[in-house]
C-alpha cells in the first residue's frame, strides 16, 4: 500500500525559510540592478553636480574640494560602490533645491502617498472582487456586461484627467467633497502644532489622538482621490477576478462540492474563492504598486503632498538627485511588494510549498 510523501512539520518550516532566503536573494539582485540604472542615469545627466552646489563663481579650489567630497575623481566602479553603500545606509544624497537630506525629506512625504494608495486599493478590492465574482457566476448577463464595460473604461482613462473631472463634478459642481490638499488650512495648523504624529498618515494619527474633527476633515479630503484611484484599481481587480473565477468554476472539484450538497454561496465563496485567492494576491499587489506609481500624476492634481508631488516638483527644479532618490524609493517599494506577494502566494498555495 502506498504511503503519502507528506513531509513532517519541521521540514516544511525549513522549506519556508528556504523560500524566504531565495526571495531575499532575488530582492538583493533586483535592488542592485535598480541602483545601477539610477547610477547610470545620474552619470549621464548633463547637469554638473558640482556647479549646482558651489555656484557659478566658485574658485578652482572650492570646486576641487567638492569634487573630492563627492568622489567624482574615483574610478566608476568605486563611485558605484560608494553609491550602493550610501543607499544601503539610507543616504540618498542632498537635494539641490533645498540642500536637505533626501531620505529624510522623502520620509516626510511618503506617508501621504501610502495613505492614499492603501485606501484606494482597499476600495478597489472591496468593490472589484465581488463585482468580478458576480460577473463570473452569471456570464453573459447584464451584470456581467456592466462589470466588463465599466472595467474596460477604468482601464482606458488617463488617471490625471479622471482626477480633474472628479474635482470639477464632485467639488466644483456638487460640492460633496472638500477640494485639493489633505486638510483645510485651519486643521492643517492643528495637525502640525497640537497633535502628536505617529505614522504621518492623517487618518490614523488623528484617530489615535482622538481628534475626530480633524479626522472628519481628512476624510472629506481623501475620499475623492482615493475613490478615483479605487475605481482604477477596481477595473483591474474585477477583470482578473472574473477570469480567475470563471476558470475555477469550470473545474471538477466544484462539481464535487455540489455533489456533497453544499449551497451555492459556499461553493463559490469557499471552494472556488480559496483557489482564486492564490493568483489574486499577485494582482492586488500589482494594482497597489500601480497606484503608488500613479501618484506622480494624481498628486499634482489634488495638491497632495506625497512622493509623487515630491518627484514632480524636483523634476521642474532640475533637482536630479531628488528625482533619482524618489525613483529608488518607489522602486524599492515595488520590488518589496513583488517579493511579499510572491511569499504570500507560496503560503496560500500548498502546491507551491513542496
Amino acid at each position, binding site marked *: 500500500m502506498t504511503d503519502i510523501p507528506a513531509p513532517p512539520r519541521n521540514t516544511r518550516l525549513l522549506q519556508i525559510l528556504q523560500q524566504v532566503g531565495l526571495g531575499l536573494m*532575488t530582492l538583493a*539582485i*533586483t535592488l542592485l*540592478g*535598480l541602483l545601477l*540604472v*539610477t547610477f547610470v*542615469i545620474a552619470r*549621464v*545627466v*548633463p547637469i554638473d553636480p558640482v556647479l549646482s552646489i558651489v555656484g557659478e563663481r566658485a574658485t578652482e579650489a572650492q570646486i576641487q574640494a567638492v569634487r573630492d567630497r563627492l568622489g567624482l575623481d574615483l574610478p566608476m566602479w568605486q563611485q558605484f560602490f560608494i553609491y550602493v553603500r550610501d543607499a544601503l545606509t539610507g543616504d540618498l544624497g542632498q537635494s539641490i533645491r533645498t540642500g536637505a537630506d533626501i531620505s529624510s525629506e522623502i520620509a516626510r512625504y511618503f506617508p501621504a502617498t501610502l495613505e492614499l494608495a492603501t485606501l484606494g486599493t482597499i476600495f478597489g478590492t472591496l468593490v472589484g472582487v465581488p463585482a468580478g465574482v458576480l460577473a463570473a457566476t452569471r*456570464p453573459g448577463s447584464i451584470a456581467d456586461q456592466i462589470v466588463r464595460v465599466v472595467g*474596460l*473604461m477604468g*482601464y*482606458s*482613462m*488617463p*488617471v*490625471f*484627467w479622471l482626477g*480633474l*473631472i472628479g*474635482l*470639477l463634478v464632485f467639488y*466644483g459642481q456638487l460640492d460633496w467633497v472638500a477640494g485639493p490638499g489633505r486638510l483645510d488650512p485651519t486643521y492643517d495648523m492643528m495637525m502640525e502644532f497640537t497633535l502628536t504624529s505617529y505614522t504621518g498618515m492623517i487618518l490614523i494619527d488623528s484617530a489615535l489622538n482622538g481628534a475626530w474633527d480633524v479626522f472628519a476633515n481628512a476624510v472629506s479630503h481623501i475620499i475623492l482621490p482615493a475613490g478615483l484611484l479605487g475605481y482604477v484599481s477596481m477595473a483591474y481587480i474585477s477583470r482578473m477576478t472574473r477570469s480567475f473565477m*470563471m476558470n475555477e468554476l*469550470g473545474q471538477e472539484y466544484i462539481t464535487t462540492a455540489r455533489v456533497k450538497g453544499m449551497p451555492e454561496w459556499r461553493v463559490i465563496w469557499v471552494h472556488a474563492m480559496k483557489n482564486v485567492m492564490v493568483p489574486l494576491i499577485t494582482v492586488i499587489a500589482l494594482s497597489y*504598486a500601480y497606484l*503608488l*506609481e*500613479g501618484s*506622480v*500624476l494624481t498628486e*499634482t*492634481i489634488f495638491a497632495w503632498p506625497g512622493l509623487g508631488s515630491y*518627484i*514632480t516638483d524636483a*523634476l*521642474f527644479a532640475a533637482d*536630479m538627485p531628488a*528625482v*533619482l532618490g*524618489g*525613483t529608488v524609493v*518607489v*522602486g524599492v517599494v*515595488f*520590488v518589496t511588494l*513583488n517579493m511579499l506577494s510572491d511569499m504570500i502566494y507560496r503560503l496560500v498555495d500548498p502546491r507551491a510549498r513542496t
Partner: protein
Amino acid sequence: MTTLRAWLQDPSPTSRRQARLGQLWLAWLRIRRNRLAMAGLVIVGILLLVAALAPWIAPHDPFVQDLGNRLKPPGTPGQWLGTDDFGRDILSRIMYGARITLYIIALVAVTAPVLGLLVGTISGYFGGWVDAVLMRLTDIFLAFPRLILALALVAVLGPGIENAVLAIALTAWPPYARVARAETLTIRSSDYIAAVRLQGAGAPRIILGHVVPMCLPSVIIRVTLDMAGVILIAAGLGFLGLGVQPPQPEWGLMISSGRKFLFEQWWVATMPGLAIFIVSLGFNLLGDGLRDVLDPKSAPK
C-alpha cells in the same frame, strides 16, 4: 466575390498562401461577431482617418491664435468644441493631435517589441547562462515602476517627443521578451528546427528566419493590448510637460493647459481627455477581441 469566398473557405487549400489567407478570413469572421471588438476596430479606424485627413477636415488652423475669440464654450458655431485660452479651435487641435498620438504609438510599436523579441528569442534559443542572465535583466526591468523610470529618463534626456518615445520603449520591452521566450522554448525543440539545424543553418539564421516569425502573432496581440497603456503614459508625460512641447496640440499637454480654467472653462481640459479616453478604449476593445479570437488558450470554453 463569391468565388473569392469559396477560395478562402476551401477546406483543402492548394497553396500555403491560400491556407494562410483562409485562416485570416476565419479569424475575421469570428471577430466580426464580437460587437465590442468591432466597436474598437471602428474607433481605431476613425483615429487613422482623422490623423490622415487632419489638414483637410479640421475646420481651423491648430496653431493660429485668435485672442479675441478665447475660451469660447462648446457649441459656438464654427467652433463646436469651444476654444482654448489662445482662441485656438479645440476640435482642430484634437484632430491634429491624433497625428501625434499615432506617431508615438507607431514609434513605440516598432521599437519595444523588436527589442523584446530579440532578447526573448535569444534567451529562449540558447538557454543556459545566456537565458539566466537575460531573464534576470528582464525581471529587473519588469520590477521597475514604468512611469517613474520613464520620467527619470526623460528628465535626463530632456523633454521632447523622441525622448519620450525612447523612454517608453526602454521601459516597455520586458513583457514582449517574456512572451517571445515562452514561445521560443516550445519552438526550439520542434522537429523542423532540428531539420534546419541539420542543414547547417547557424543560430542567427534560425532565430531570425524561423523562430521570430513563429513568435510574431502572440507578440502582435500583446502590442495591441499594450497600445492603450502607451497612449496613457505618453499623455501622462505630455501632461507633466515632459513629452511633446507647446504649441504642439498633444492631448495630454492640452489637458494640462486647461487645468488653470478647470472650474470656469471646463471644456478646455475635458475635451482632449475624452479623446484620449475614447482612443485608448478603442485599442483596449480591439486587443481584447483579438486575444479572444487569435489566442486559443484564453478563448472561452
